[in-house]
């Protein structure tokens, strides 16, 4: 039997939802009929609006999809202004204040506390400035990701930006592809560093060379295009890397192949069980070969090429070793200017800082900024002679191009602050962890990157399985009382041979986690082989040895959020009980 969600989607989904959304916004939140709330909240996701968790009734998270993380000149300012004006709610975050933007692991932007009545004004402002929330959530083509500095990166094999733009134009608001069985996450990468993280997406295009002649037959000159992988994803304790389906495509045919695979997913994906719906499960069932055959026979009208020669051996992004594990710092652009990656701790930036950064990007660069999959921001097009002054700007003390490895390596998801699925508090906790580790833990002198990713549940929005240290929300009892806890995984990473973290230690009370990481690092420093990376060190130990290295311990780190933060209406409120929850916002 199709699920209720499928039924709702078949009745109304996609473009048409916008009109109804505006009607509800006009008439007020209460105008949504009582017995249609579930249905409308599900449909609103297609327009980037996700109802915040219980206790925050009537407030929405709004996601703005920025393809490849590209914010054209002026757009960051618009985001800052919208955050400043509309992303204010009844709760104030003790670290980030009361208006902020989140840069996400899929190169998008999330705002919180959005009221329905403000949505038309926000959409109008976004539209005027070339921004959109369309398909940012829901069962469809999500924000397309890639190497954020596509088109500029000195290390680029092929410029993926025109390809991404074309895909975005083709598949946003495309009736044939607007209602898929589940989310559809696409990555297109043109650089040799692996920074598009294709391996953990539903569909990945990765740079590859293929010898083809003028008629497309094999044996001609080497041409740059893309190899295709399908069925990656991290969620629900079922992580998968995308599988190689032995297809190479030239850039001009990417939309045909992408549309073919999205069509295949639309028609063959499981619409009866949402837990089994992601394409990774279809690839499990069919195998890569059958995916290829079906694509060839039913969805494209030209002969597919077999896979070309990839550049995976050069991948370093999130790889746990080698150069350029992230895009922080000053790097060369093709055109002789520079891009400067700035660390945004856990991806969150106050609205005032967003506006300041927009000013700096205009003053020193072209006004453009780009977002990475490590929740950081990159200012592009900075000429050599402006570099020195830019790096001395006070804002860069906080958003540093040269941060402590513990700040630089931190990624965290939304967690109990706003998210329904969460088990524990996340962003503020990761900030506290990073600050404590910076003061109290040590890395060997030759190690300058160390990634700690914290996800509040198994959905894995913070991509914990591809970090040096993976933290995932759990509970435990401490002295008999229930407390928030974290499972600890080690040694995950992408690169030529990606590997998921191994979950070696379960249910560590949150206040013992920083001590556990410090102890682990001490053992690493003592026992590593000369020049050995943390990932390699983990790889040559078994789970039991690693569990012993983790060694949880109370320290002077104090965690103010040990209790069930989900039982609050807002974890940081003075009167935080669910019975103190603010009323649904009135229409104004």
């Amino acid at each position, binding site marked *: 039997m199709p699920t*209720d*969600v499928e039924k709702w989607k078949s009745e109304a989904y996609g473009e048409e939802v916008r009109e109804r959304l505006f009607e509800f916004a006009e008439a007020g939140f209460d105008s949504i009929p*009582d*017995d*249609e*709330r*579930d249905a409308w909240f*599900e449909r609103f996701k297609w327009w980037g609006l996700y109802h915040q*968790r*219980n206790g925050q009734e009537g407030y929405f998270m709004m996601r703005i999809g920025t393809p490849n993380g590209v914010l054209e000149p002026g757009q960051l300012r618009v985001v800052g202004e919208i955050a400043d004006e509309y992303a204010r709610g009844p709760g104030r975050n003790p670290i980030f204040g009361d208006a902020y933007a989140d840069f996400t692991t899929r190169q998008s932007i999330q705002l919180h506390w959005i009221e329905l009545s403000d949505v038309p004004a926000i959409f109008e402002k976004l539209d005027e400035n070339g921004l959109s929330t369309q398909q940012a959530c829901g069962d469809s083509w999500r924000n397309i990701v890639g190497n954020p500095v596509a088109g500029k990166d000195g290390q680029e094999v092929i410029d993926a930006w025109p390809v991404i733009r074309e895909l975005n134009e083709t598949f946003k608001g495309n009736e044939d592809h607007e209602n898929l069985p589940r989310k559809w996450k696409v990555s297109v990468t043109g650089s040799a560093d692996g920074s598009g993280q294709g391996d953990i997406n539903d569909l990945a295009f990765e740079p590859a060379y293929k010898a083809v002649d003028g008629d497309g037959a094999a044996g001609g000159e080497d041409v740059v295009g893309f190899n295709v992988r399908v069925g990656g994803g991290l969620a*629900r304790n079922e992580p998968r890397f995308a599988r190689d389906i032995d297809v190479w495509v030239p850039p001009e045919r990417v939309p045909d192949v992408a549309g073919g695979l999205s069509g295949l997913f639309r028609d063959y994906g499981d619409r009866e069980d*949402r*837990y089994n719906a992601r394409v990774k499960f279809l690839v499990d069932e069919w195998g890569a070969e059958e995916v290829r055959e079906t694509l060839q026979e039913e969805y494209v009208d030209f002969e597919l090429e077999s896979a070309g020669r990839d550049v995976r051996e050069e991948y370093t992004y999130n790889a746990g070793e080698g150069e350029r594990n992230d895009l922080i710092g000053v790097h060369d652009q093709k055109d002789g200017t520079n891009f400067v990656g700035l660390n945004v701790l856990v991806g969150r930036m106050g609205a005032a800082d967003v506006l300041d950064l927009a000013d700096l990007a205009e003053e020193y660069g072209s006004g453009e900024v780009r977002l990475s999959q490590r929740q950081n921001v990159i200012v592009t097009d900075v000429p050599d002679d402006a570099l020195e002054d830019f790096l001395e700007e006070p804002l860069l003390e906080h958003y540093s191009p040269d941060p402590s490895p513990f700040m630089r390596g931190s990624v965290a998801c939304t967690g*109990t602050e706003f998210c*329904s*699925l*969460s*088990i*524990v508090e996340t962003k503020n906790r990761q900030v506290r962890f990073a600050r404590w580790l910076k003061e109290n833990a040590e890395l060997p002198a030759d190690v300058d990157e160390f990634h700690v990713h914290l996800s509040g*549940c*198994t*959905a894995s929005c913070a991509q914990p399985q591809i970090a040096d240290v993976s933290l995932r929300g*759990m*509970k*435990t*009892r401490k002295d008999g009382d*229930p407390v928030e*806890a974290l499972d600890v995984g080690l040694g995950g990473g992408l690169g030529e041979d990606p590997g998921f973290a191994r979950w070696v230690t*379960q*249910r560590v009370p949150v206040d013992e986690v920083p001590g556990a990481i410090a102890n682990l690092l001490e053992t690493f420093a003592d026992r590593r082989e000369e020049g050995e990376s943390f990932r390699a060190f983990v790889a040559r130990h078994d789970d039991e040895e690693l569990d012993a290295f983790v060694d949880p311990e109370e320290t002077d780190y104090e965690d103010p959020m040990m209790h*069930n933060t*989900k039982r609050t209406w807002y974890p940081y409120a003075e009167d935080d009980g669910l019975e103190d929850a603010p009323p649904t916002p009135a229409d104004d």
Partner: protein
Amino acid sequence: MTTRLRVLDDGAWISIDDGREVRVSELWRLDAPDFCGCDLADLVVENFQEVGVDGSRVEVRVYGQCIACGETGITDWLPVGRIRGGEFVEFDRSCVRRTRRD
């Protein structure tokens, strides 16, 4: 009138008549010998799988983990509350929950 029961947002909560009633991240005490070896499982509720009704009793199957022994899996049907006069009344969360035995 029939009661509308749904698992929504990827198993994050149980909707009863379009209202959010039962949520993940709670700890439940279970008398569920099929789930793990503990006398009473101490279950972290991570994902709702299914919701149903048995008479007036609302029941769910959940994915979770017993934090006493580490066992993970999907439980049998567990009662979470009752529909009384058209309204949902949640059972006391600190009480032991028993799987249906028929």
